[in-house]
């Protein structure tokens, strides 16, 4: 199988003497760093940690659902487990995954800057993330929360004695971590681009992060105030969501979903940015319709603010309002579809090779398309009334989030791993892991579409026996999926010491980050680059190869 991987001669190659990793040693130099690359690594470690905790919760869920009665976990415990799974996976993994690890690392380099606009706020963002994570663990360890990650009122405000306040405050803090990351990105992209780096020469990865950052900055505060109100209602009893005191529980949902719907775009847009880079690099072709992809990212962000009540069709909103939101939901699918078309067109007549990042990208395109289409089904009120709160919804969002976003994250981690660490991951086992993940994913989540359509409700520990066969398939798939996710943890750690030396540009990719050493210097560039070429300009890359300069673009 052909590959574009070009490594330096391993018998003589070494890591660069000076890099952001070797500049300073010691815990203090890491915990008080302003270097965006080090902060990205800190995030990588903490995000991985929380991912596996959330994954363990998922394991418990699938174990319980092997049999119809709730025999492994009591119903209340089961509620706590899926709530933990949801909160951790949404707020501590999916939202920060690509932006805080890959985005933090590459965006300043991609725009040609020495660092993000506000390095100290970047570090604060990480500390807030860790604090939020610790609070979630505290809530878990001291007895758990069983409201579901959606904290629906009046259940969360009046009917439960669990640690809703701790969990709510944890999410509040995680929200500010997210806001600060987004704020940093927007300012950096606007104000810190190198000479010649115009908006339309930016990699599409940057555009998608720009769009996601707008959502982070504008949407997350509404979640924050909503959680504050829930905490006030639980502590003092102010009654703003309490029907007996004249409040409206539905108001909570409006405010909650006003953030949480854009949140799904916060989660997926950075992943889409990764896919743009990966597809282009491994087809040796510029992304088809650059402008369309760039503008569709922003369009997703803008439209994403107008559709939140499609999560509330059965909750008691008026039919007229539901109609409006349903119509707008159909609209928001269009920009996402545009991206899929453009990526497919990029592949057409490209010189495609199948390295691991590309395998994950293919997985993304297939699975995200399925997940996205089922989202359109759910956006139509008539279908949603039957399918909502069933496993159809669970399958839908796992297809887009796990089949889509998580695959994009893994694709990105593998793609930029040589840049971040200077070493290559082992290609053979990584391809195997990608395939295992894909197979495991389909086995886990496709049966759930069927289950949902047949009527199995979500968030139930027990179910009627006729659903068992499909549930067993799903749980079997989950164990395969677990292997698929564990493997990268093992071989990526292994590669830190034993991986092949990567050199500055193992993928022969365009983009400023591939024109500097791996791992990069702390200040990224020796001299400020002056950009004269368009994005994904493979001809420019060819001409550069004649006079290879290792550090300057």
């Amino acid at each position, binding site marked *: 199988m052909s590959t574009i991987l070009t490594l330096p001669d391993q018998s003589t190659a070494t890591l660069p003497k000076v890099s952001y990793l070797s500049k300073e040693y010691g815990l203090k130099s890491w915990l008080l760093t302003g270097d965006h690359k080090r902060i990205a690594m800190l995030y990588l470690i903490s995000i991985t940690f929380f991912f596996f905790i959330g994954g363990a919760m998922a394991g418990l869920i699938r174990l319980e659902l092997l049999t119809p009665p709730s025999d492994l976990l009591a119903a209340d415990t089961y509620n706590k487990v899926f709530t933990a799974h949801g909160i951790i996976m949404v707020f501590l993994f999916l939202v920060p995954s690509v932006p805080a690890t890959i985005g933090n690392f590459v965006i300043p380099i991609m725009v040609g800057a020495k660092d993000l606009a506000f390095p100290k706020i970047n570090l604060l963002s990480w500390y807030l993330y860790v604090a939020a994570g610790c609070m979630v663990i505290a809530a878990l360890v001291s007895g758990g929360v069983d409201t579901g990650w959606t904290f629906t009122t009046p259940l969360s405000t009046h009917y439960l004695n669990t640690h809703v306040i701790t969990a709510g405050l944890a999410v509040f803090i995680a929200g500010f971590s997210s806001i600060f990351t987004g704020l940093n990105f927007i300012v950096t992209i606007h104000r810190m681009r190198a000479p010649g780096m115009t908006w339309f020469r930016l990699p599409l990865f940057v555009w998608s992060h720009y769009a996601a950052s707008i959502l982070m900055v504008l949407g997350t505060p509404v979640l924050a*105030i909503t959680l504050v109100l829930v905490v006030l209602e639980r502590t003092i009893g102010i009654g703003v969501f309490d029907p007996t005191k004249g409040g409206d529980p539905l108001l909570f949902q409006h405010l909650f979903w006003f953030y949480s719907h854009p949140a799904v775009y916060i989660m997926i847009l950075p992943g889409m940015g990764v896919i743009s880079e990966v597809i282009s690099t491994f087809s040796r072709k510029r992304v088809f319709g650059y402008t369309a992809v760039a503008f569709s990212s922003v369009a997703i962000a803008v439209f994403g603010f107008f559709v939140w009540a499609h999560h509330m069709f059965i909750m008691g909103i008026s039919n007229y309002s539901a109609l409006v939101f349903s119509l707008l939901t159909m609209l928001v699918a269009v920009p996402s579809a545009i991206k899929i078309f453009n990526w497919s067109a990029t592949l057409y007549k490209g010189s495609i090779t199948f390295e691991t990042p590309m395998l994950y990208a293919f997985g993304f395109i297939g699975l995200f398309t399925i997940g996205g289409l089922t989202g359109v089904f759910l956006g139509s009120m008539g279908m949603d009334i039957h399918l909502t709160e069933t496993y159809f919804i669970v399958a839908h969002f796992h297809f887009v989030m796990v089949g889509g976003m998580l695959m994009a994250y893994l694709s990105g981690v593998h793609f930029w791993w040589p840049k971040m660490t200077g070493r290559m991951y082992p290609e053979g086992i990584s391809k195997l892991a990608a395939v295992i993940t894909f197979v495991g994913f389909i086995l886990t989540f496709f049966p759930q579409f069927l289950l949902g359509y047949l009527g199995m409700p979500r968030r139930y520990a027990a179910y009627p026996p006729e659903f068992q066969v499909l549930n067993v398939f799903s749980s079997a798939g989950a164990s395969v999926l677990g292997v698929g996710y564990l493997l990268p943890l093992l071989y990526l750690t292994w590669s830190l010491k034993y991986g092949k030396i990567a050199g500055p540009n193992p993928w022969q990719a365009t983009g400023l980050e591939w024109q500097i050493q791996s791992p990069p210097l702390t200040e990224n560039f020796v001299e400020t680059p002056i950009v004269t070429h368009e994005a994904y300009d493979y001809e420019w890359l060819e001409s550069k190869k004649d006079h290879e300069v290792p550090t300057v673009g």
Partner: protein
Amino acid sequence: MDSHTIAAQTAEAGHIEHEHPPFLRHHFATVEQQRETATFGMWLFLLTEIMFFGGLFCAYLIYRNWYYPAFVDGSHSLHIWAGTLNTTILIVSSFTMAMGVHASETRMRKALVGWCIATIILGCGFLCVKAYEWHDEWVEHHVPGLNFSPEGFMRVNPAYPADAPLQRDMAEKTQVYFSLYFAMTGMHALHMIIGVSLLALLTIRAWGGAYTSGHVAPVENFGLYWHFVDIVWIFLFPLLYLISRHQ
């Protein structure tokens, strides 16, 4: 790619201010870029604040429409002199803060410190009036959840004799009004406290001359924050205090 051009450009930009003023962070090329970046960052933060308070305004809008008579009576029980006084205090404090920014821009150290102290005093004055009002609400059993009693609203209000006393079910809805009153003024007061504290720190550093040698951004951006908190109050005042005062 021409390193000589880059070096020349950086030097050109540098000579507008001194070559590398101590407050210029290393990842910025010029002081101008650093200042604009900081201001843009502060504006984005203010956007988050707009949305943060926005949720409360949304709740207010809905419940005022649902429980208008309760909101009228609730509003009548607030002291309009306190609200008007507080609004005046904040507007004057916005003026003093703007003057402080001006002093920083024109490099007048003592003037800057003076205007900042004036702003702090006015801010504290606002908080004192607010504390008095809150204490009053506590005494009158208007604190939701803690000691709320609708009894007062089921009797005639001597200040507004034309107001019909509320029936029990609507009187109980005044608790929603006060929930929003405390949530909104409380959140606003929290921002005031944070603002006054930050301003105290800024004033100490201003006394040492930190903001009167070209490094205007911190004062300027704090000013933006302060004005924003003023704007929130500009809306809170009519919405909470001035509901149907014509009786």
